[in-house]
């Protein structure tokens, strides 16, 4: 029998208000194996930890159970403490009596106390049979995979590469740049977005440690932190990157027009195209969806005029297999579609556009060369209405969260419009203005005071066209307490930000947790904001939540520094709670072998007998093979059958 010490944390009042901690201690003290039990106000605090350390020594404890908050919060704290005190960290276990007990049974103290006792008993039983374990060491592949080539992925790639490590940057579009390359000027300083981004894109393309795989997508991923195997699908561009000299003759002869993604469908491009002049990689792409096809060649005009013979109709999708040690997810965002908003016309009015389209109108490289003009009649609009929170903060019909940056870009849009059309009128409908950030509030104030943008506090309830074909916005002015009707020439909708199209698919391939909307979850909302709880995955930019460029860059650099920390390790430590075979019991039936998702099980001949082995480096400790073994010959370390049986008994006895 072990000498287990149980510490029951009050967590201030978080636990103690609901669970009778004194009673818990009194009961647990008598439980077999428990050599010591006590309660304390904050076990995780400095004096709390000191108390635990001293008690370990004084009472000669060989095992610890801390009954406190979820193990995701303090398991590491207390395991580190154990190690420092000379106790094997795997002798320390957490009983979660806060998230899964005191907080959820607030109105039933008696039952909560009983449940807490049972939870602790199960963990005492587990601790009682825990073995001392040492982490398993594995080598690290010092190459990072960055998924997504927006500003987040670009910044993370540069930082990792500048620290001396190899980077593979995978972008699914023909060029890197993401949404930032489409922006006109950026709040709050109004720098030209392309002017600050393109030098970074060029740096990426020239960096000896970065390989850009554009027009590519991650297809498959296996392995674990330090040792992932990835399969990347490189889609055929039908243009040989190294041969194309960007002369552009192909575009002149291509007979097919398609909507330009770069201009958010406000303009056309050809079926063979360069997404924008500064594209990286600098090469054309044939969009096979619009090209009349080349099986057999239906047109082939581009190939006829291409002097360097860069067109290759025989190009096929390519699968590239790589080993990487860490993965940065930087897949960014998309905008919620105005088609979802019935009261604003479901996207059917040409002169009602989303914020990104308006960015393209403002941009010098946009379809109008930077002039604000209506799509319908090419006229300069004299009154423009900007509507905030479209799709955001709407629990009932759309998305409940705040997209965070729309207040700012809306102020920017109104301001830039006034700079371009000084005699025009800009009207903003807003719920409230969220302008937290350095220089942000001042920026919004400038919009209102210097540029005379009119702010109406209230939601726009309806947008429609009247009999004369004029756009009408109905809304409420909640400050004046009356309904307003505004006739205008153009409306710009600040659409909610949502995870990028296809993010769900990717996330399920990567097997990393995300929230209900598909934004990737951070390991801890405050203390570990740039990592996933799944080891080896890091997050940067809008893939995690809506944010602006400065925040995106900060998070990308944070993620990169976590990656370089990982790569700086000699070797990685791997959880030792792996499968272990009792060779005497193993019948060599082989049932376990195909069950393992990591190929960690294999049969071997030993002393003329077939037995199954476990590759401890590959085993992730899921336990699948253990539950399947008909001879009970394989056990999971510290999750042995006997432990689980005893845990069940602790609940039912």
């Amino acid at each position, binding site marked *: 029998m072990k000498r287990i010490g149980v510490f029951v944390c009050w967590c201030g009042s978080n636990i103690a208000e609901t669970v009778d901690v004194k009673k818990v201690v009194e009961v647990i003290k008598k439980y077999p194996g428990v050599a010591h039990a006590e309660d304390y106000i904050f076990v995780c605090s400095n004096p709390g930890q000191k108390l635990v350390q001293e008690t370990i020594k004084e009472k000669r404890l060989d095992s610890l159970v801390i009954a406190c908050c*979820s*193990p*995701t919060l303090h398991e590491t704290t207390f395991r580190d403490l154990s190690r420092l005190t000379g106790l094997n960290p795997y002798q320390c276990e957490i009983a*979660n009596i*806060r*998230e*899964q*007990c005191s*907080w*959820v*049974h*607030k*109105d*039933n103290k*008696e*039952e*909560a106390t*009983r*449940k807490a006792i*049972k*939870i602790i008993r*199960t963990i005492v039983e587990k601790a009682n049979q825990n073995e001392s374990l040492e982490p398993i060491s594995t080598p690290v592949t010092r190459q990072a995979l960055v998924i997504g080539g927006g500003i987040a992925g670009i910044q993370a790639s540069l930082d990792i590469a500048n620290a001396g490590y190899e980077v593979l940057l995978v972008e699914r579009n023909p060029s890197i740049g993401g949404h930032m390359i489409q922006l006109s000027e950026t709040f709050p300083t109004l720098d030209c977005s392309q002017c600050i981004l393109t030098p970074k894109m060029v740096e990426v393309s020239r960096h000896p440690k970065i390989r850009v795989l554009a027009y590519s997508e991650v297809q498959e991923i296996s392995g674990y932190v330090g040792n992932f195997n990835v399969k990347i699908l490189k889609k055929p561009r039908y243009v040989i990157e190294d041969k194309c000299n960007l002369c552009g003759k192909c575009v002149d002869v291509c007979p097919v027009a398609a909507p330009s993604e770069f201009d958010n469908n406000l303009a056309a491009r050809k079926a063979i195209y360069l997404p924008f002049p500064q594209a990286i990689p600098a090469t054309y792409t044939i969009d096979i969806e619009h090209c009349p096809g080349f099986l057999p060649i239906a047109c082939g005009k581009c190939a006829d005029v291409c002097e360097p013979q860069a067109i290759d109709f025989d190009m096929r999708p390519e699968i590239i297999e790589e080993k990487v040690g860490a993965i940065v997810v930087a897949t960014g965002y998309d905008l919620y579609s105005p088609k979802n908003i019935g009261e604003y016309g479901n996207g059917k009015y040409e002169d009602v556009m989303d914020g990104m389209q308006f960015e393209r109108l403002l941009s010098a490289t946009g379809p109008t060369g930077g002039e604000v003009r209506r799509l319908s009649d090419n006229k300069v609009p004299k009154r423009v209405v900007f509507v905030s929170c479209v799709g955001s903060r709407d629990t009932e019909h759309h998305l409940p969260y705040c997209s965070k940056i729309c207040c700012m870009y809306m102020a920017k849009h109104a301001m830039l419009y006034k700079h371009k059309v000084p005699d025009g009128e800009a009207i903003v409908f807003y719920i409230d203005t969220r302008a937290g950030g350095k220089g942000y509030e001042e920026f919004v104030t400038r919009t209102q005071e210097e540029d005379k943008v009119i702010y109406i506090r209230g939601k726009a309830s309806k947008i429609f066209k009247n009999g004369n074909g004029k756009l009408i916005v109905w809304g409420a002015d909640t400050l004046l307490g009356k309904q307003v009707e505004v006739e205008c020439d153009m409306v710009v909708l600040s659409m909610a930000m949502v995870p990028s199209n296809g993010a769900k698919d990717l996330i*399920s391939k990567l*097997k990393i*947790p*995300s*929230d*209900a909307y598909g934004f990737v*979850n951070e390991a801890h909302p405050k203390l570990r904001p740039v990592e996933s*709880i*799944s080891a080896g995955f890091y997050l940067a930019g809008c893939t995690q939540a809506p944010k602006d460029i400065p925040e995106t860059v900060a998070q990308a650099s944070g993620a990169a520094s976590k990656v370089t920390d990982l790569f700086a390790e000699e070797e990685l430590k791997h959880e030792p*709670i792996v499968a272990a075979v009792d060779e005497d019991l193993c019948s060599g039936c082989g049932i376990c072998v195909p*069950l393992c*998702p*990591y190929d960690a099980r294999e049969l071997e001949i030993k002393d003329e007998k077939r037995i199954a082995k476990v590759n401890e480096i590959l085993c*992730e*400790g*899921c*336990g*699948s093979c*253990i*539950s*399947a073994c008909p001879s009970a010959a394989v056990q*999971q370390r510290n*999750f042995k*059958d006997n432990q*689980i*049986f005893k*845990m*069940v*008994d602790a*609940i*039912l*006895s």
Partner: protein
Amino acid sequence: MAKISNIFEPRIVCFFCKWCTSAGADLAGTSRMQYLPNGIPICVMCSSRVDPEHVLWAFKRGADGVFIGGCHPGDCHYQSGNYKTRRRVFLLKQVLKDFGIEPERLRLEWISASEGKRFTQVMDEFIEEVRSLGKLKV
């Protein structure tokens, strides 16, 4: 939920996988959502660690219900563990019938880390279902 003394309080053993259902239960906690306290959690790395033997053991030792919570299909942290669980639970329910145990006393659910609300709903619902089945007699 005020406890009424003559109401039957079922004893329920809950196996949660660490990555999804236990995280969902934690979220219900941080969101202070309230639910019935009859289920006592045992957290395992993956739902596929739950051996039919563990479930039978629980019933043998007097559990009125056994709950297994894992990740949604396709979301298992270990790629495919939950499919194995699904298969095992399906077969196990047949075995339970043979033993004269209502298969409804064993429940397998997929609850993700973001489904705190659903976690509480499923818990309450399952506990009420077992309550209505009454004490396990074998």
